[in-house]
């Protein structure tokens, strides 16, 4: 008879657990060797819908490693790369493999927030440093709360700051009514909600919200239904969706009729620009980076990135590059001793340097403080590029609010999908 409480799968589960335990025991002795080599496990989607993001992040990571010739203060850095396929279950399996079998001493990369949440859970349990340097922008990961993880830092981005900068720019531009179109998943709703909240705080309003599912191939119905009395279309549609939305936006004759403000540059993503052509001219986007930033660090970065990938970098390359830089600096601070994990995390939180993205430092929660850029698609030397037209410096994760203000709002993004036109709800306090 099978145990009533565990059901017929109880036996199976205990067998699986035993096997897993045996595997962990067997491999822990392996990971103790090779002291002088720092092993960095990298989880990125190298196939699937977010493959392009993964490839570019990896390019950035490798560019920094090549610059320091794979070694920092006498410690060799070895990269162990796994394809997460953008799937949380696959990613956790690969994370386990990296840490428990291959001996990775930390995990880095990660593009999808769903993957980040799953791996965060694992990393917290296994006490493995997790340095997010991919797109994963779920706000809650670096805010005190149920997801907070003392072993996590993020040098890439979060969802809301880029949206908040977009709202600020939209208001200054004189726009008061926005129609929003965002991918229907947690990250999409979170980002659009952050825009709506910031826009309401300033005095603007979202007049229409549309939520095409991830992987929407035909945006025709949404574009036909678009509120044409709005001042601008505010969009957030990552992956191949952005490319299709941009293409179909011009095909449906909207170019020049309704300005576009593209949070996170999901439409005017650099690899998309040559494919979409001149119809993107004048589109605005908000991002933590622009390939047109005029600093020596960035100009050097852009030249090398272009040599490797053949097009201008978007945020992923610089994020990966900065992630690897932060790791190298922290390894140097602790002199290669990664056994004291909290000390290594503290060292990570102390890093401070100039990067292609601008000046970088971290807050006490382990979240990066950096610059935000509003860019406009222009022709530079005959090539389409996102040229910065407004810059916000020293933007922390709660900008322009404080942590207390951020926490004071009654409703979160999960409560207000479908009601973002109601500023009184958005601005309601606890």
């Amino acid at each position, binding site marked *: 008879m099978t145990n009533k409480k565990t059901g017929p799968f109880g036996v199976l589960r205990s067998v699986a657990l035993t096997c897993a335990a045996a595997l962990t025991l067997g491999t822990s002795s392996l990971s103790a060797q090779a002291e002088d080599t720092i092993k960095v496990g990298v989880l990125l989607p190298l196939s699937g*819908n977010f493959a392009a993001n993964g*490839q570019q992040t990896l390019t950035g990571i490798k560019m920094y490693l090549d610059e320091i010739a794979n070694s920092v203060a006498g410690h060799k850095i070895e990269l162990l790369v796994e394809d997460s396929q953008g799937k949380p279950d696959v990613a956790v399996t690969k994370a386990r493999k990296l840490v428990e079998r291959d001996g990775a001493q930390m995990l880095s990369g990660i593009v999808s927030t769903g993957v980040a949440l799953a791996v965060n859970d694992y990393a917290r349990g296994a006490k493995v440093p997790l340095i997010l340097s991919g797109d994963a922008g779920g706000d809650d990961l670096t805010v005190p709360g149920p997801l907070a993880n003392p072993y996590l830092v993020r040098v890439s981005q979060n969802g809301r700051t880029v949206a908040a900068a977009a709202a600020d720019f939209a208001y200054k531009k004189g726009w008061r009514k926005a129609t929003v179109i965002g991918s229907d998943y947690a990250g999409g709703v979170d980002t659009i909600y952050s825009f709506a909240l910031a826009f309401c705080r300033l005095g603007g309003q979202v007049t229409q919200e*549309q939520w095409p599912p991830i992987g929407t191939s*035909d945006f025709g119905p949404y574009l036909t239904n678009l509120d044409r009395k709005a001042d601008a279309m505010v969009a957030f549609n990552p992956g*191949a969706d952005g490319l*299709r939305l941009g293409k179909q936006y011009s095909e449906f004759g909207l170019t020049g009729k309704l300005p576009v403000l593209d949070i996170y540059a999901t439409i005017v993503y650099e690899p998309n620009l040559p*494919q979409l052509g001149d119809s993107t001219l004048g589109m605005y986007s908000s991002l933590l980076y622009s390939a047109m930033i005029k600093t020596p660090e960035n100009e050097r970065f852009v030249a090398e990135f272009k040599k490797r990938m053949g097009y201008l970098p978007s945020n992923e390359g610089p994020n990966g590059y900065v992630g690897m830089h932060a790791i190298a600096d922290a390894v140097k601070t602790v002199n290669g001793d990664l056994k004291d994990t909290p000390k290594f995390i503290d060292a990570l939180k102390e890093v401070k340097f100039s990067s292609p993205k601008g000046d970088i430092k971290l807050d006490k929660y382990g979240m990066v403080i950096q610059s935000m850029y509003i860019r406009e698609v222009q022709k530079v030397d005959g090539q389409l590029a996102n040229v910065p037209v407004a810059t916000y410096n020293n933007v922390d994760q709660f900008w322009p609010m404080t942590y207390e203000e951020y926490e004071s709002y009654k409703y979160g993004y999960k409560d207000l999908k479908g009601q973002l036109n109601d500023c009184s709800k958005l601005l309601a306090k606890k």
Partner: protein
Amino acid sequence: MIWVIHVLNGIAIGMLLFLLAAGLSLIYGLMKILNLTHGSFYLVGGYIGLTVMQFTGSFVLALIVAAIIVGVIGAVIERGFLRRFHLDELPQTLLTFGFLFIFADLCLWIWGGDPLMVRQPRLLAGSLPLGDFSYPYYRLFLIVIGLAIAGGLWWFQEHTRLGTMLRAGVDDAEIARALGINVSLLFTLVFAAGAALAAVGGVLAAPVLSLYPGGDFDALLLAFVVVIVGGLGSLRGALVGALLVGLLDDFGKAFFPQFALFTVFVPMALILVVRPTGLFGRR
């Protein structure tokens, strides 16, 4: 006017779905092979079309080259592999599943991970103004070419000798063989034609849907929905199913956006409940 656009759009997308589903349905109807590689034929066709476009700039040439190359690939797969498991459904399906992965990796290797957009022919680049709105010429072209291909396939099936043999094969392959029809050759031809049709669909869809890793699975899923709604093995079913799914998807997304994820699948589930064999399927 907004209604006109929604209807046009539903039909245009329906036509793309038809091109995807027709080959899948024909192959199943004749050979009883659930061809999962069909998604690859679509994606590989699109990518080949893209490359041809890059080198020659000709959309017509892209369609022809993609159809020929993918058709040959289809013939090789049928002759070289599927034939060994004649009427053995599970090994056949698994085999086509394996090919799906192999082609997906090959595409990633050759064309990379970035989503790629194919430019439509310059002639069809603009859009037709309709009151306050406008509708892309290219999608109107899709409607025309979709109907033309559907008509051509119907004519072929009803009015040519090969078409008659095909229908005989669908009805009863054994008897057809006994009557002296070269069923073996017919199998290869239909498999190649189905693959070529998917490739044409890939090239035609690329300017609208873009090409990206994973596009093969997405296309396969939609093709399945269409053939389940329309009934496996029936060309008419594929056409009606595709139009139905295209229109329901458009209107569903436009007027019940909160169900956007299910607009394609709810009709499928409902039809399965009422008619498990699909609208035009036969037992």
